[in-house]
């Protein structure tokens, strides 16, 4: 049982997702099977429209599969919950709350009330505030705590989004192209921060990306998806690079280049993007 939990923390079996559209049913995902071990970092990569985000939403519980089953920590995923925190592509901070309040909202929800299933009691206001401050400090935003999202840069907003997800101490961290909208320098910095945080918290992470370097640098396992419609998992690549990883050293590593080549080969040779078919 415990071994089962470690190696098969998230288990996706025969998942199919069909959307109703005006032109009739549209099959986004078909026959998706995937297991994620506890503490593993998995990247989902593929061309746009291949259903990466659809799969992530299914794990988050934001949508329900048409067929198949998703299990997380031995429980069927029946809906969204704070145990599977999501960092959204467009940060999704509430613009009328300060950074502190945005994070506090999540902290208060998870730790502000007694939880019978885990046997924890409600924490005091001071404890909740300390947790919020700690989460903001982890992403280096202590000084921006009292600012509204409209007053800070895109990279800072994304970091607040990450702080909001991490503060809940989730079992699984789900990242939907978290750095897609950022410039290359900011992205690299946040990737390094994420690596450090994940190493410290030992989180299980599923991340959607379409950046090959990001996938190889961060993950233990790269899940490459075929083109939609009816997308499925084309290939799973284990990335056995030692941690901690350093982007500068890796840039010359033959192993790194080998993994990079494998992903590029899959994306551009075997799954050359056919925009018209997907649309």
């Amino acid at each position, binding site marked *: 049982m415990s071994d089962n939990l470690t190696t098969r923390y998230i288990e996706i079996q025969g998942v199919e997702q069909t959307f109703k559209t005006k032109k009739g049913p549209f099959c986004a995902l078909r026959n998706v099977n995937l297991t994620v071990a506890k503490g593993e970092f998995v990247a989902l990569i593929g061309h746009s429209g291949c259903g990466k985000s659809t799969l992530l939403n299914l794990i988050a519980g934001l949508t329900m599969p048409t067929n198949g089953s998703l299990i997380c920590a031995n429980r069927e995923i029946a809906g969204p919950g704070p145990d599977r925190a999501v960092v959204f592509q467009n940060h999704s901070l*509430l613009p009328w709350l300060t950074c502190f309040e945005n994070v506090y909202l999540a902290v208060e929800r*998870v730790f502000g009330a007694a939880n019978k299933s885990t046997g924890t009691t409600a924490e005091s206001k001071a404890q909740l505030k300390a947790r919020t401050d700690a989460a903001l400090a982890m992403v280096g935003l202590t000084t921006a705590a009292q600012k509204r999202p409209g007053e800070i840069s895109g990279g800072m907003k994304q970091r607040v989004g990450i702080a909001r997800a991490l503060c809940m101490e989730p079992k699984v961290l789900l990242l939907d192209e978290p750095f897609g909208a950022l410039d290359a320098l900011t992205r690299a910095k946040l990737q390094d921060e994420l690596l450090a945080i994940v190493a410290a918290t030992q989180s299980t992470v599923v991340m959607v990306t379409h950046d090959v370097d990001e996938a190889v640098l961060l993950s233990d396992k790269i899940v490459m998806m075929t083109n939609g419609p009816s997308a499925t998992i084309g290939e799973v690549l284990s990335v056995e690079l030692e941690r901690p990883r350093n982007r500068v050293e890796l840039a010359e590593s033959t192993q790194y280049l080998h993994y990079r080549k494998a992903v590029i080969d899959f994306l551009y040779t075997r799954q050359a993007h056919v925009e018209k078919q997907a649309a």
Partner: protein
Amino acid sequence: MVSAVFHSPLAVTEPVEASARVLTNTTAAAFIATPVPVARQPFDWRGLWLAVLPPVIGLGLLVGLWALVSITTASSIPSPIETFKQAVVIFSDPFYRKGPNDQGVGWNILMSLERVALGFGLAAAVGIPAGFMIGRFEFLSRMFNPLISLLRPVSPLAWLPIGLLVFKGANPAAIWTIFICSIWPMIINTAVGVQRVPQDYMNVARVLNLSEWKIVTKILFPAVLPYMLTGVRLAVGTAWLVIVAAEMLTGGVGIGFWVWDEWNNLNVKNIIIAIFVIGLVGLVLEYVLIKVATAFTFEEVKN
């Protein structure tokens, strides 16, 4: 983003570097943000000219046309100067009371505003929660949409006889009419606002598993507020239009009744003064509500 926040030449010429520095070193950011002393600008005469001259010409055009009409109709429409003299007389004592049907213009305006406030307040109390429910629940939306579509185009004055019949009094009937005309924009705008709350925010609520109370107070209400305030602004505008007509029919004390009374007295000067007064009060209401609305709209929502 960065160049929009830090208006220093350094940040403008090196935006990427500056942003990296801001992220890594906040003390550096504080240094960059230190305001650079700006040379005093010469007074902007051209801006003043553009701000003042066109409105003055516009008003002049109106008064000129009015004077022209006055001359061609052989003063059956009073001239601007006579009307102005009369206005001075009226506004020298706006709050006199000489019996139930002869009161100062100040009382008339206040009575009209009171009716608008009452009718509008009741409409807000009913319309905003109703709009929330209709926007939140598909079933209610489908249930009430045909009713709203059917009743909204009806002139609120058509409801006046029903009001007179049910409430057996002129004053409540006028308030009822205001209630009817202001409730539609508030229901519709609130409902649309709720339906347009970005799915991202609702996804946040779902992932955090927030309670319905938290969803309403922390997400729905702030997100809907700008829409709601637009509804309020439209409602008050319509209410101020309708009150004049309603009071013409119901009588009593009020700016609409005053217009009708002066028409019966063939006192055209007072009618023209009333038109200006109604316009000014409407302008002030609109201005105040726009100020309130901008104070509650977040940049992020507009983008």
